[in-house]
């Protein structure tokens, strides 16, 4: 096994691992500052922030020969006997010089910059920069220029790391961004016509990522721009509910208001990226048209119901209802679907379970590096399907269920929603007209909602807790990021109470139960890592 030395510390790496100086130093707990290097992009070694001293230790004699000059760690492979020194006076001086260089023309407009607080230039300046500004150069003003619908460029904040340019060439494969001019006049831009108007704007479905990978505040996400200072926000690990890819994300919120979603590194699913559809697909969480009042239909019309008495009331009515049916939406988490299924089965062992409608838009879109946006616009079809087929005995889809509901008069039907786009119509209402009691749990009003005997406001992905199973049978768990608006009870908590369980809904406990009961989920028994767990591992045997 190759041994590498970082500041005298021995690090053993795998025989086949190909690591550079930055990566190997990370294992030694040493952070090497960098701008241009990004693990998901090609190496250009041009920012020169990661300069270190490198050398070789002769395994026979133990003698260390250092290279006379500093080298970029991103471009220096770690092989057996490689020696890295990241804290020598030479390295400290080289970093200070680069940091000083980058700040020569930087407008230092941190007070009005969105990146402030999570900016590499800021952080590295405090850590590696000089105490005093020696340059007496008038910085340019902070020029702003649009690059497309999603991203705006603050020209003078740029440090020319070219991460964004490489991203559009290597990851999205659309190559909209480029470097114009030369030397200190260099700028990032897109092709424009002779009047300076956008001719080929930054327009691809992964465009939001360039703002994430920008180490400084040059690329601004228009959706997030001036919405919130980053230090006010709390970050919660979550899973994108936009499509069946199930990108690992972070939900960033302040006081129960979501301001942005960011990708979370997951080598198995989304690597470092997420698509714009997912990234900007959280605004329904705070939509004014969200339903937030539980209501009961009485002869005179709808009256407000009280969450404190509703569970008992629902149970009482469902017990007398006769044949039950539940429609489990692919927006439910595995745990929620399981609890609801358990609940209706406990009241009526012959209860019918069905999978809610699975929204599909267009076809899967594949990108150059393998990133896929799936056409299936729900996060958990696979997970809910398994619950339906395991507990219901057969896998009934939405269409078949409606057909069955027309002939077979159900005593009560419980329909779950959670969709962000309209998902049912008058046809569905007609099919369920025979059912004596209709309970609809959803975020937005719909034809079915308008016809329900009980309207139960439901939670969005940011308020839910549980696990999703993505297209590759990877189960990822997450906790709630914000509390639901007043009047909304999260689905999991409601089912938990209906089942008569004590205290608060605990998704992890439910998953343990599921893992023991349904073999498909067995791999999740040992706990679920940040990057999720592959449910296929146990299926081979």
């Amino acid at each position, binding site marked *: 096994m190759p041994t590498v030395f970082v500041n005298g510390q021995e690090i053993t790496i795998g025989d086949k691992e190909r690591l550079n100086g930055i990566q190997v130093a990370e294992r030694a707990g040493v952070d090497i500052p960098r701008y241009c290097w990004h693990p998901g992009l090609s*190496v*250009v*070694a*041009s*920012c*020169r*922030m990661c*300069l270190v001293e490198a050398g070789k230790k002769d395994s026979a004699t133990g003698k260390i020969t250092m*290279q006379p*000059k*500093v*080298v970029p760690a991103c*471009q220096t492979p770690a092989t057996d006997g490689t020696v890295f020194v990241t804290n020598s006076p030479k390295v400290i*001086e*080289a970093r200070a*010089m*680069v940091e000083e*260089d*980058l700040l*020569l*023309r930087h407008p230092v407009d941190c007070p009005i910059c969105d990146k402030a607080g999570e900016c590499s230039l800021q952080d590295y300046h405090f850590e590696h920069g000089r105490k*005093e*500004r*020696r*340059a*007496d*150069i*008038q*910085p340019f003003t902070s020029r702003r220029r649009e690059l497309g619908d999603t991203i705006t460029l603050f020209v003078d904040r740029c*440090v*020319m790391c070219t991460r964004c340019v490489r991203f559009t060439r290597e990851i999205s494969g659309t190559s909209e961004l*480029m*470097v114009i*001019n*030369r*030397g*200190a*006049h*260099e700028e990032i831009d897109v092709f424009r016509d002779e009047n300076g108007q956008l001719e080929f704007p930054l327009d691809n479905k992964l465009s939001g990522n360039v703002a994430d990978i920008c180490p400084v505040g040059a690329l601004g996400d228009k959706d997030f721009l001036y919405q919130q200072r980053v230090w006010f926000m709390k970050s919660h690990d979550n899973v994108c509910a936009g499509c069946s890819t199930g990108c690992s994300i972070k939900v960033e919120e302040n006081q129960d208001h979501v301001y942005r979603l960011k990708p979370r590194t997951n080598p198995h699913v989304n690597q470092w990226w997420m698509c714009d559809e997912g990234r900007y697909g959280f605004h329904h969480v705070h939509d004014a048209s969200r339903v937030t009042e539980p209501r009961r239909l009485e002869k005179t019309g709808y009256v407000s119901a009280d969450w404190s008495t509703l569970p008992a009331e629902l149970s009482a009515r469902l017990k007398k209802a006769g044949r039950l049916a539940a429609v489990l939406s692919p927006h439910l988490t595995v745990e929620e679907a399981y609890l609801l299924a358990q609940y209706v089965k406990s009241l009526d062992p012959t209860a019918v379970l069905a999978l809610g409608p699975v929204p599909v838009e267009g076809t899967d879109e594949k990108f150059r590096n393998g990133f896929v946006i799936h056409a299936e616009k729900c996060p958990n079809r696979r997970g809910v399907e398994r619950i339906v087929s395991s507990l219901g005995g057969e896998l009934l889809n939405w269409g078949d269920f409606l057909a069955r509901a027309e002939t077979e008069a159900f005593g009560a039907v419980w329909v779950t929603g959670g969709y962000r786009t309209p998902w049912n119509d008058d046809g569905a209402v007609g099919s369920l007209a025979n059912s004596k009691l209709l309970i609809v749990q959803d975020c937005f009003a719909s034809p079915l909602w308008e016809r329900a005997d009980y309207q139960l406001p439901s939670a969005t992905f940011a308020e839910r807790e549980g696990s999703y199973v993505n297209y590759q049978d990877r189960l990822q768990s997450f906790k709630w990021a914000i509390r639901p608006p007043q009047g909304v009870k999260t689905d999991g908590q409601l089912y938990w109470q209906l089942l008569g369980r004590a205290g608060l809904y605990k998704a992890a406990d439910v998953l343990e139960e599921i893992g023991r009961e349904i073999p498909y989920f067995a791999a999740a028994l040992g706990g679920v890592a940040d990057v999720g767990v592959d449910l296929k591992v146990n299926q081979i045997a």
Partner: protein
Amino acid sequence: MPEFKPVLLANVGKPESYTRKVYEQTGGYQALRKVLKTLSPKDVQEQTKSSGLRGRGGAGFPTGLKWTFLPKDHPGPIYFCLNADESEPGTFNNRILMEDDPHQVLEGLIISCFATNSAAAYFYMRCEYPLAYKRICQAVAECYEAGYLGKNILGSPYSLDIHVHRGAGAYICGEETGLIESLEGKRAWPRIKPPFPAVEGAFRKPTVVNNVETVACVKQIFDRGVDWFKSIGIPPDPNNPRDAGSYGPKLYCLSGHINKPGCYEAPLGITTTELIEKFGGGIWKGRKAKAAIPGGISMGLLKASEFHCKLDFNDPGKFGCLGLGTAAVVVMDETVRMVDFLLNSCRFFSHESCGQCTPCREGTSWATKMMTRIKHGKGRLKDLDLLLEIAENMGIMPGTTICGLADGAAWPMKNCIKKFRDELEIYIKSTNPSGWMETAAVPALQLLDIH
């Protein structure tokens, strides 16, 4: 030493020297015939190596050695790039060769391509040479007519095509990997090495990049023999184990404050004084010399008292210069202010920095701004130390950049401040009597709108 007769410039000045007819009258393309008939590519490589020919483009890397870096038994194609992007200030020897004796260049190029088994040659010429472009295009057409280019050259199994490509006028395209990037249609941002072009160059294939004058020398070596070539110049310096010797004739571009500026051919190792006196006709207007650039602006400066410096690959280093460079000697007379020289030099490099590596992009531009301020009477003594610090922290040598442009930018700064510090200090003190001693950080100044 017997009187040296120009070889590379032998045809220059003859009427219609750029035509194949005139070139062939003086034995043109005989070397190519001989090589194709009697030698294998390996022999050509070996002979070039033993001749001690070093690249004329600036770095002085042994040409034969560079060729041997190509992978053995490569399935091909291997490409040959001829670097005619001559843009070092003061340099114009390639231009003379291409305009007045294009066939000499092409013959050398074909021999070099044969030696390296290249399938195609890219003649990368800077845009600012319209006449050279016209002459080279004509000469290439004439070569195809005569069967020196194309399929099965002169009946041998070897085939070669030459593509003439014009650059767009950037200094950085003269850096070999910058040239390759530009040739591929990209921004001329030099590549990280390794891999070197010999392993992975143009279009990701093994590539050799040589200078115009280098291939002209190759032609002469196979015309006149290795021994002839080695009889000219200076053997390796025994005190410098890294010196490979400086053999052969060299084209010196003499310009500046002298009576007869021009491109002159002399054996490598001629001293600066000799060059100025013998070829340049002395300093103009009867003045005294103050300094000279030994080989293009990026090589640094020689003071008048250092003019005994031999202009070979080794000697300028002893005087603190970066090297021989392109052997473009620019002479400055006593009226030149070094502040002007340094500002000019800084401005050139900040204009030409490709902008890829931070230390070069920002360092060159910072230095220019600082020099502009000094020039305008707002200098401080402290600025000189700052300039030195910037210079010492950029380039391949300290390890902070990808290519050598920054070294070239730093060298005149280092040299000038070291050798003419007194003068610079006097200038600063006299133009900024109230503020020259200031050492505190100064507030931002509105400067002239240049870099």
